């Protein structure tokens, strides 16, 4: 007699296969720590304190005249822009003939807790820009800011517009009150004075907490189930482990910088209201009049489009472009879509102005 509650043999098969994959996983794939990222060849052109200015070696015979400096975010590492050759933001731009530099903010320690917006903008970023101008014998460079790096870069170009020819803002954190992400909700209710006073720098653990509230079941459980199910798929596994390695490596953020960022951007929303000051100097978005290209990801759950788009409307530039892509925060810079659509569009825009 056939039971009505008989278990489908396929379920047993699936469970056995999944168990087999889990057991065999260590033999098939390396540990994230063992993965060596195949970064685009580069030199360290300049070091200021713990920051490094990376200069990528050309991959074409001819290069466009205006160099491009990328100001990476304060969260995690610059390596997401150069994670693997076929999805590398940097390599793609170098292959398009651009002379690319990247600012790596390094790993701040307890003694860096007093570093603030002024140090990052008028110290590290300006130091890098001046160095590139000297090295390349140009009066102006192109600047790209990504995520929180774009907040810094935006403030920088209002203070030093004479040094920047073109500006690219990729998922910039601009209008904190319009940001609809859960991160902005946590930031708005944070006693940031007490946090910095007590722990100094913003600890990476806090950032890991912020990651954990983003789609906790899809990202915290299902993602790993998919990983073990696809353990035979080399391409999938390789990409997965690289992104995981990147996600689990976030440096602390200097206390004073973090304090000003949370207060001025998320709590008081001063930047978009043109009320922000850095070392007593006014950050006025209306002073931005160079060509500007704003890139926004529709599915961005770290920096919502509503938070980034106001930049496009706040600047005085006549030559301004806003592009929205059907992807997420990381997808915009490190995916097949970024290689096929985002980067070719950026390259074309930049080439016409370089």
């Amino acid at each position, binding site marked *: 007699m056939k039971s009505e509650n008989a278990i*489908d043999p396929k*379920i047993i098969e699936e469970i056995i296969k999944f168990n087999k994959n889990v057991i065999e996983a260590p033999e098939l794939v390396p540990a994230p720590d063992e993965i060596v990222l195949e970064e685009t060849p580069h030199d360290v052109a300049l070091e200021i304190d713990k920051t490094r200015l990376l200069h990528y070696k050309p991959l074409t015979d001819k290069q466009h005249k205006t160099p491009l400096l990328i100001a990476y975010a304060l969260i995690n590492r610059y390596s997401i822009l150069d994670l693997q050759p076929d999805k590398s933001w940097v390599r793609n731009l170098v292959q398009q003939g651009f002379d690319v530099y990247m600012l790596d903010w390094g790993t701040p320690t307890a003694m860096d807790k007093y570093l603030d917006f002024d140090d990052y903008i008028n110290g590290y970023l300006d130091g890098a820009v001046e160095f590139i101008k000297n090295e390349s014998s140009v009066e102006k460079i192109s600047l790209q800011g990504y995520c929180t790096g774009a907040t810094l870069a935006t403030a920088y170009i209002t203070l030093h517009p004479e040094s920047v020819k073109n500006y690219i803002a990729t998922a910039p954190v601009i209008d904190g009150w319009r940001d609809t992400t859960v991160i902005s909700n946590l930031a708005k209710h944070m006693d940031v004075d007490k946090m910095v006073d*007590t*722990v100094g720098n913003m600890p990476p653990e806090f950032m890991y907490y912020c990651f954990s509230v983003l*789609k906790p*079941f899809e990202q915290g459980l299902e993602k790993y189930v998919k990983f073990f199910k696809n353990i035979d798929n080399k391409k999938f596994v390789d990409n997965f482990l690289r992104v995981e390695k990147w996600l689990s490596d976030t440096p602390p953020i200097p206390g004073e910088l973090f304090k000003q960022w949370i207060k001025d951007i998320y709590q008081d929303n001063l930047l978009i209201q043109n009320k922000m000051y850095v070392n007593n100097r006014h950050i006025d978005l209306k002073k931005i009049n160079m060509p500007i290209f704003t890139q926004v990801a529709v599915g961005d759950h770290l920096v919502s489009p509503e938070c980034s788009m106001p930049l496009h409307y706040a600047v005085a530039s006549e030559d301004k472009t806003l592009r929205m892509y059907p992807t997420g925060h990381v997808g915009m810079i490190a995916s097949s879509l970024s290689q096929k659509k985002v980067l070719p569009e950026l390259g074309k825009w930049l080439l016409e102005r370089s």
Partner: protein
Amino acid sequence: MKPQSTEEAVKYYKHLSLFWTDLIHLMSSKPQALTSTGPMRAFATNSKKVATELIEINESLLGFNKFQTEYYKQFAETWSEAQKKVNLKYPEIPQDVEQIEVFKRIWIDIFDNDFTELFDSKRFGENYGKLVSKELDLTKHWNNITNVILQSVNLPSKEEIDEVYKELHILKKRITKLEIESKKKKMVERNEK
């Protein structure tokens, strides 16, 4: 007078503990000074600070527990609501691989949506902010206790090290400014020649 509320009880017992800590410290300070010798002398002298911090930790712990309970309560409520929605949408027990996949997708989508709604709410944000604030209070008390121990072995406290960091930061800024000014001066001189 008997305390009427929890808040009054906390205040009453805090006062009681502080009173006796202070008094015992006063009464024992001379015999303590006479009898403590060697590296433990400083610790013995500052032991009152440790006792005071421990009393205040209790107050912070009370607040921490309150917000932590609310934190897990919000989790439990959201979980229960999400599970009800899943049950409504998929009342039957899945029997084959395809059905399990469909069920799993529904479960994940509903749970992710409901929890994102929770994390996005003012209620969660406010409570989480207060919870972290109380956690920081506890850390601060622990820092203060550690400082007493550090001072007893002649090591600088957190505040003293912070002062050094601040001084270094100011000095670095001043040097950078001087370097830029000197560079500009040299350029002007070169141009004049």
